[in-house]
């Protein structure tokens, strides 16, 4: 074998591999696919997959087929490792993720250092966009949006609903004391102050608690009318059960996402007990579809691909974010990081034009400033949207 032959084959190999890589454009899908967070990590990823299917069915982006490469962010360390693998080995154009805020914060730092765009579609912590990263964008609503929405709902809807002025209501804020509960409750407290509401109890507790009876008693003694709880699943169940068993019936209970949106929570607490409980979270499925165009098509596509109805709103929100981002990238030329960043920065989708209801326009810190959550209520064992009015499918109900 002579040198020229070797050179020729090498050149041929390079050309072949280059063209092969050119037919597809790879994006990373970084979610917790195994371990503790696998259930909703997988659910989130499904939304991204449906968005990619739709984009590919319509001819891909810039004429190329979108291929997703999965990375399993089972813990923070592995999130970093998988982000490195996706960037250096798989050479993805950008990464989508991540459902968990902690994983997102860890992995997006790797992407930032490699100048690879990172699109967060579902993590809610303030710190995700609060770090001034250049290549990180977040499409979904976050902790501040949640706190604001909950307080708005109290002032605009609940106070008139039970026939009181907002400032007459006694508000109790309770939260699990990790970063999630603490950040949402801080936003609640600050915004409640701004609105002139009267917060009489503000109390944290460890999420892994087995007893909340003393907290229930504290709220009961303070005569709290409206309880705002930011919690995971076990503590949501525990609070609602123990409040009920202690005979404590506040005029309204509003949960912040987490356990409050999930059907097993309602089953555990009992449909009669949870009836009337409010919840602010990502857009769910029992919503007025005039405010969320494309929602029905998404549900159909989901059922066709996975054989069941969506298990939570996570897939929907990931779908909306991913589809908008991919479309924006499709309008530009090339997949260079800075080209992608330019393309998404000029995005301007108005409210009421996506399947989740909210529009997309990136503002300060590359956070989607149009992102918003929705207010929901458990009615007859189902979580129906009640706020804002445009998206509501049923009026908010109040106990007599």
């Amino acid at each position: 074998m002579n040198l020229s032959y070797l050179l020729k084959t090498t050149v041929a190999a390079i050309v072949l591999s280059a063209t092969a890589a050119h037919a597809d454009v790879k994006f990373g899908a970084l979610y917790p696919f195994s371990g503790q967070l696998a259930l909703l990590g997988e659910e989130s990823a499904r939304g991204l997959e449906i968005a990619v299917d739709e984009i590919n069915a319509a001819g891909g982006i810039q004429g190329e087929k979108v291929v997703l490469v999965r990375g399993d962010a089972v813990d923070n360390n592995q999130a970093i490792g998988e982000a490195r693998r996706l960037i250096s080995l798989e050479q993805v154009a950008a990464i989508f993720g991540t459902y968990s805020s902690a994983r997102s914060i860890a992995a997006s730092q790797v992407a930032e250092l490699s100048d690879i765009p990172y699109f967060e579609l579902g993590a809610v912590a303030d710190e995700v966009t609060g770090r001034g990263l250049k290549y990180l964008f977040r499409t979904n609503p976050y902790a501040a949006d949640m706190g604001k929405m909950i307080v708005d709902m109290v002032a605009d809807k609940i106070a008139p609903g039970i026939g009181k002025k907002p400032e007459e209501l006694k508000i109790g804020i309770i939260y699990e004391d990790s970063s999630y509960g603490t950040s949402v409750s801080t936003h609640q407290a600050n915004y409640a102050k701004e609105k002139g509401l009267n917060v009489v109890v503000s109390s944290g507790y460890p999420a892994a608690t087995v007893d909340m009876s003393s907290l229930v008693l504290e709220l009961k003694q303070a005569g709290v009318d409206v309880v705002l709880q930011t919690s995971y699943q076990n503590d949501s169940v525990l609070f609602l059960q123990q409040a009920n068993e202690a005979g404590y019936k506040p005029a309204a209970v509003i949960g912040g996402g987490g356990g409050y949106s999930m059907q097993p929570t309602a089953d555990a607490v009992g449909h009669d007990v949870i009836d009337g409980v409010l919840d602010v979270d990502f857009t769910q499925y029992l919503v007025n579809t005039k405010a969320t165009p494309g929602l029905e098509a998404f549900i159909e596509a989901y059922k066709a691909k996975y054989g069941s109805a969506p298990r939570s709103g996570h897939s929907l929100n990931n779908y909306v974010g991913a589809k908008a981002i991919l479309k924006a990238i499709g309008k530009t030329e090339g997949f260079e990081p800075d080209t992608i960043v330019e393309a998404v920065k000029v995005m301007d989708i108005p409210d009421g034009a996506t399947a989740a209801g909210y529009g997309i326009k990136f503002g300060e810190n590359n956070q989607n400033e149009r992102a918003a959550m929705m207010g929901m209520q458990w009615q007859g064992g189902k979580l129906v949207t009640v706020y804002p009015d445009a998206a509501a499918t049923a009026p908010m109900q109040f106990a007599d």
Partner: protein
Amino acid sequence: MDTFLQVLASGLMLGALFAIVSIGLTLIFGIVKVVNFAHGEFLMIGMYLVYLITAKLGLHPLVTVVAVAPLLFLVGVATQRLIIQPLMSARDDHIQIFATVGLSTALINLALLIFGADIANTPPGGLRMPIQIGPARVLLGQVIILLASAALVIGLQLFLQRTQTGRAIRAVAQNRAAAQLMGINVNRIYMLAFGIGAACVGFAAAMVAPLYPTSPTIGTYFVLTAFVVVVLGGLGSIGGAFAGAMIIGLIDSFAGFYIGSDLREVAVFGVFLLILILKPSGLFSERLNLSHVSP
């Protein structure tokens, strides 16, 4: 005054919950001298068994104890035989601790694989019914836990004091080598003790499952408090564990109401540290005895 009595009642009920979960742990600790970090996961297995039996067969959760306690006994025996015993003569006791930590992680992930991360609800079978005792309101299931944990403590004490096997178990706990010289099959006693400890958790599971939703990580909710209770009461002291649990339950409840729920752990662990400093062997133990071979 009414509020005070309510907080007191809640504290006693919480103490009983901690007690029933901790008794098996102190038994294993006192006799086999192994810190079983998988204790919470034994509870988790027990609760899933209770859930499966009640949900599939429609039995009352309390009835499941006749199946769950023996099954957990077998789990305990298997753990001792297959995991702890091969490591028993290891030069360093800590190796067994790492083994139980590994077992704990493995069991949590196994449960995640089988049941998923969602919660499973055991039908309460009337145990969630509130009952009014004077000005205080508690659940029927909580009262049953209190009675059952007291019965368990008395039963185990009688077993250890009055029966030949019980005496053998105590002999092994006091001095492994001497007991062996007296003709006691030490390995068999260890398996038995580990099995009984695990069976106690199975017994507890039948009463805890109807009141708390079961999830793969439910054990981690209890295990830290269980260790505090066991150390507080004196390692290996069954009556001490009961008393320790009541103390922790009451502190938790009173601190939660009168100081604030964010500070209740500060109160619980503050008192715990204080007692350890004043009486390092725990409230009801004569001396610290951590080695397989007693001094």
